[in-house]
């Protein structure tokens, strides 16, 4: 009996050890990035690397002074908010209709964007947007990023809509409510938390998306992610500023994701797994 208890404690101890090990491997690179961003410039490239230093904001100041960081950030915000809003506007009614009618092809159609390589769309978009002079416009960027946000909204919301008992709708129909009215007045308030999760996921993936802005933006509309490339070019030895840029770019998605972490996994697998 005592033996069994001992083995039990051993197993628990071993498990905790593995958990800590995994945590360190997962966290260490990010911690190192944030630490480096607060190091004085001569210490960032010190070898052997230093762990103890007097933190400074000089890298962040340098970033805003030597690069148009804030206007890139504003571009990112415009494109991300615009594409998330567009994704919600098109995605909410579509998810509701698919859930109600069980006709799923519109939802599957939007998934194509999740599977095909982005360059496949980018080639014709580039040719078409150039013909109508829209390269570098916010409109082109928002439209292209909505291709990312739309399937996220639809597939995250589908299980939420499916979860509403049919009787709720049938009662409303008997009362003479139109379908559109049922969606906005009855169904939407019931899936409000699902809408919030889908909006945050759409925001995160639109913010993080790299490829489209690389080609479709110009100097004035460049997003932070597309501009990251310039930071590397300029800062081949200015690691401090590079890490400050990386930290700031990663901050919005990380903060938002932390807010909805509990619901993230089922959302991220597009409903394939109920987390």
């Amino acid at each position, binding site marked *: 009996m005592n033996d069994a208890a001992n083995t039990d404690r051993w197993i*628990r101890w071993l498990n905790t050890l*593995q958990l800590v090990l*995994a*945590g360190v*491997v*997962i966290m260490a*690179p990010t911690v*190192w990035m944030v630490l480096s961003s607060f190091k004085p410039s001569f210490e960032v490239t010190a*070898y*052997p*690397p230093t762990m103890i230093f007097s933190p400074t904001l000089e890298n962040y100041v340098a970033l805003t002074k030597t690069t148009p960081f804030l206007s890139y950030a504003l571009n990112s915000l415009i494109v991300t908010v615009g594409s998330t809003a567009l994704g919600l506007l*098109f*995605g909410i009614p*579509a998810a*509701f*209709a*698919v859930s*109600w009618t069980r006709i799923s092809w*519109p939802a599957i*159609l*939007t998934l194509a*964007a999740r*599977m*095909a*390589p*982005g*360059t*496949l769309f980018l*080639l*014709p*978009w*580039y*040719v078409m947007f150039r013909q109508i002079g829209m390269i570098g416009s916010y409109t082109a960027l928002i439209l*292209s990023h909505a*291709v990312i946000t*739309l399937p996220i909204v639809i597939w995250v919301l589908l299980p939420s809509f499916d979860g509403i008992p049919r009787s709720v709708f049938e009662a409303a129909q008997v009362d003479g409510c139109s*379908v559109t009215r049922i*969606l906005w007045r009855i169904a939407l308030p019931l899936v409000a938390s699902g809408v919030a999760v889908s909006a945050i996921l759409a925001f995160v993936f639109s913010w*993080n998306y*790299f*490829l489209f802005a690389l*080609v479709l933006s110009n100097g004035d509309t460049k997003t932070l992610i597309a501009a*990251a*490339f310039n930071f*590397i070019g300029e800062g081949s030895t200015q690691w401090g500023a*590079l*890490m400050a840029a*990386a930290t700031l*770019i*990663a901050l919005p*998605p*990380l903060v938002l*994701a932390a807010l909805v*972490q*509990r619901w*993230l996994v089922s959302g991220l*697998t597009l409903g*394939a*797994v109920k*987390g």
Partner: protein
Amino acid sequence: MSDTAATLTQDRQKLEMAALSAPAVIFTVGMIAFPVVYTIWLGFQTFSSTGKQSFAGLANYLKLISDVEFWHGLWITIALFVLSLVLQLVFGVWLALVLFNAKRLPGIVRSLFISPFMMPPVVAGMMWLVILDPSLGAANYILQSLGLPPSDWLASPTWVIPTVALIDSWQWTPYVALIVLGGLQSLPPSVYEAAQIDGASPFKTFQRITLPLLLPTIVTAAILRSVDLLRFFDIIYITTQGGPGNASNTLNIYGFRVGFEFFNIGYASALMLTLTAIVFGAVLAFNRLRGAVAW
């Protein structure tokens, strides 16, 4: 009378439903279906240096067959795909078991575990570029302190693909782990109790019971990762741009460069359609596999 009224409302309802889906469908057809058809057409065109285009028949696809860089890109894509997928599935299942045994998972711990894959891949690339710097990076310092030889990591033609696989696995292993954890939590506890009564060792229980029951979940994770891994782009473009030389020139990177650096839109279209066919083929194959391991 009431019958026609009923069909009338039913027709009305169908119309309203179609109207609700219409914006999403029209948007998707306009932004995806039509451009893909256009790409197919572009794949049969050549563009001269002056920008004049002409019909080329299958020339782009014939060029593909004899293009050394295409076969190299295909090989690199498959190598990166297999290496990353194996790493992420093996460590993902391990991490899921560790998390499952921990029982309680405070929100803050979960937030930390999802942080790698919520961060932009571009940022992950920037971060690891600094850590893996051959002369001043922290990674080589740690290796040397442990008495191990330093590596050139992303700057080495031999090691660049394993290194990229390592970076991507750092980012996405926790994601695989959380999917598998979801699968573990949905397994009926009775199967474990039965195994315990039979006196099976923990390892035997895992091998004979847990793993087979988890396979459908693991295949789902494999599908979701494959789709991203076969069109690998962000981390490579930000760290090596396909280099050193062409050592990390995956098909997606190669196609992008053919299209937007050399402006050979016709050939790039042929390349991207081929890659798309590969991705869809992989998804179909995994889907059949999932059917085979379902319970």
